[in-house]
């Protein structure tokens, strides 16, 4: 146990060193002019300019729009995915025919339907949320099915022994037992919602972080563009770290 813990610790130290070394390398390459400033600005400049932008509030509106869209898309896809997962699980015949679709769903490049959503729902937040939901709902469905499949039989039996009603057994037994799997679904859904929202803003929209990056690119404002990119990178990393921590807690509980 000790050595394992030690290994994890040293691995994360090495990881931090690798990332830091990479950043320093890029910084040096940029400062020495090997990478021209028209291609990439030094990370320190990205950071300081980004702090200025956040202080000045130039992109506050875009950031808030994107975040609201991401939160909305995550909530809708988690709830919808969970409900659909429950429904599909309850109907084995439907499930059997829908399973091949679920397993090859991510082969379809969902983004090609974004123009259709724009025509149907108009330009604005709705088509963006719709495409993000389309992208992320299926992982939630799969996670729900997966969780429901793996409830240990002993738990079903103990619910029967204790003569719990359907609802009580759902709330006190099934939900806690499936929670680790559901959370993995939530984690992936949030990641896909990020991808869906920012990518669709990039393709066609009037506001949001993706739009702001595209706009800055088209106007050769490299400093704004790279600061925004850095912002997205840091934001996604932070969200991932938090969700992964929670996920690991759940996974550890499952193994107990």
């Amino acid at each position, binding site marked *: 146990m000790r050595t394992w813990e030690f290994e994890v610790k040293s691995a994360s130290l090495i990881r931090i060193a690798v990332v830091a070394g990479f950043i320093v390398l890029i910084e040096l390459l940029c400062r020495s002019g090997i990478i021209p400033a*028209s291609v990439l600005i030094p990370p320190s400049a990205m950071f300081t300019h980004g702090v200025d932008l956040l202080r000045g509030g130039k992109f506050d509106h875009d950031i808030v729009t994107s975040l609201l869209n991401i939160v909305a898309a995550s909530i809708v896809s988690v709830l919808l995915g969970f409900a659909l997962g429950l429904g599909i699980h309850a109907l084995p015949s439907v499930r059997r025919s829908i399973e*091949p679709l679920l397993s090859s769903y991510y082969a379809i*490049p969902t*983004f*090609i339907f974004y123009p259709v959503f724009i025509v149907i729902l108009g330009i604005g937040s709705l088509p963006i949320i719709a495409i993000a939901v389309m992208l992320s709902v299926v992982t939630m469905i799969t996670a729900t099915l997966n969780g429901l499949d793996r409830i240990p039989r002993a738990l079903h039996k103990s619910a029967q022994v204790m003569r719990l009603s359907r609802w009580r057994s759902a709330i006190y037994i099934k939900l806690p037992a499936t929670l680790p799997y559901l959370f993995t679904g939530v984690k992936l859904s949030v990641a896909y919602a*990020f991808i869906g929202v920012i990518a669709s803003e990039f393709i066609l929209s009037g506001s949001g972080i993706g739009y702001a990056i595209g706009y800055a*690119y088209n106007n050769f404002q490299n400093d704004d563009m790279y600061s925004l990119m850095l912002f997205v990178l840091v934001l996604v*990393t932070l969200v991932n770290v938090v969700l992964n921590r929670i996920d690991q807690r759940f996974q550890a509980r499952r193994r107990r």
Partner: protein
Amino acid sequence: MKRVVDSLLVALVIVACWQCLHWAVGNSSLSSPWSTVQALVQMLGTAAFWDNVGETARALAYALVIALAGGVALGVLLGVNRLSGVVAEPILLNLYSLPKVTLYPLVLLVFGLGLSAKVAFGVMHGLIPILMFTMNAIREMRPVYLRASKTMRLSFARTIVHVVLPAIFPEVVSGLRLGFSLTLLGVLIGEMFASQRGLGYLLTSAMNLGDIRTIMAVALFLTVFALACNGLLMMADRRLKHR
């Protein structure tokens, strides 16, 4: 046989939903399934369409080869050396869940407009899943294989070629299945932003013209293509796993 019937049923239900949606929102917003098929058939007869298909296919082929070769090579390196794998895994997972579109301007500034940028974008999407599958396959490979190669005193290169690669081949195919669809997505998104040719460009130009029939026809073509390739890789996958 049963599976085929089930898939057909699902396809029928989807077409029915599509038709109902078409009735609900009107012809100018969503073309009906039948007129989309007609538009697609008409498009398939033109040489310009096949030029665009060829362009996308070329970019996809380059990107796939690079993603596969790079993913397997890096995956083998990270899989054989346990510590480097442990160090790299969270970084890779984070890169995977990053909205890679944000990095697109960087790709354009480095590679310029044109084929190389599209290929680079496809590789960015497809490389990591192939890498992860390869790495995990090596980690979960039975240790007896490596011990056997040690007993036979095989060199590192020969161990990789004769022992490791054959052992992980099925997992590499699974990784390729995921990597394939992501590479296709990457190439298409690349074409949508900055290209004068290819199916992605066809989509954006139709989008700007509000030509919903063309959009649906191209989308249908791509969906059928993606599902067909996915089905083939899935079949290969299943056969290899049952070996």
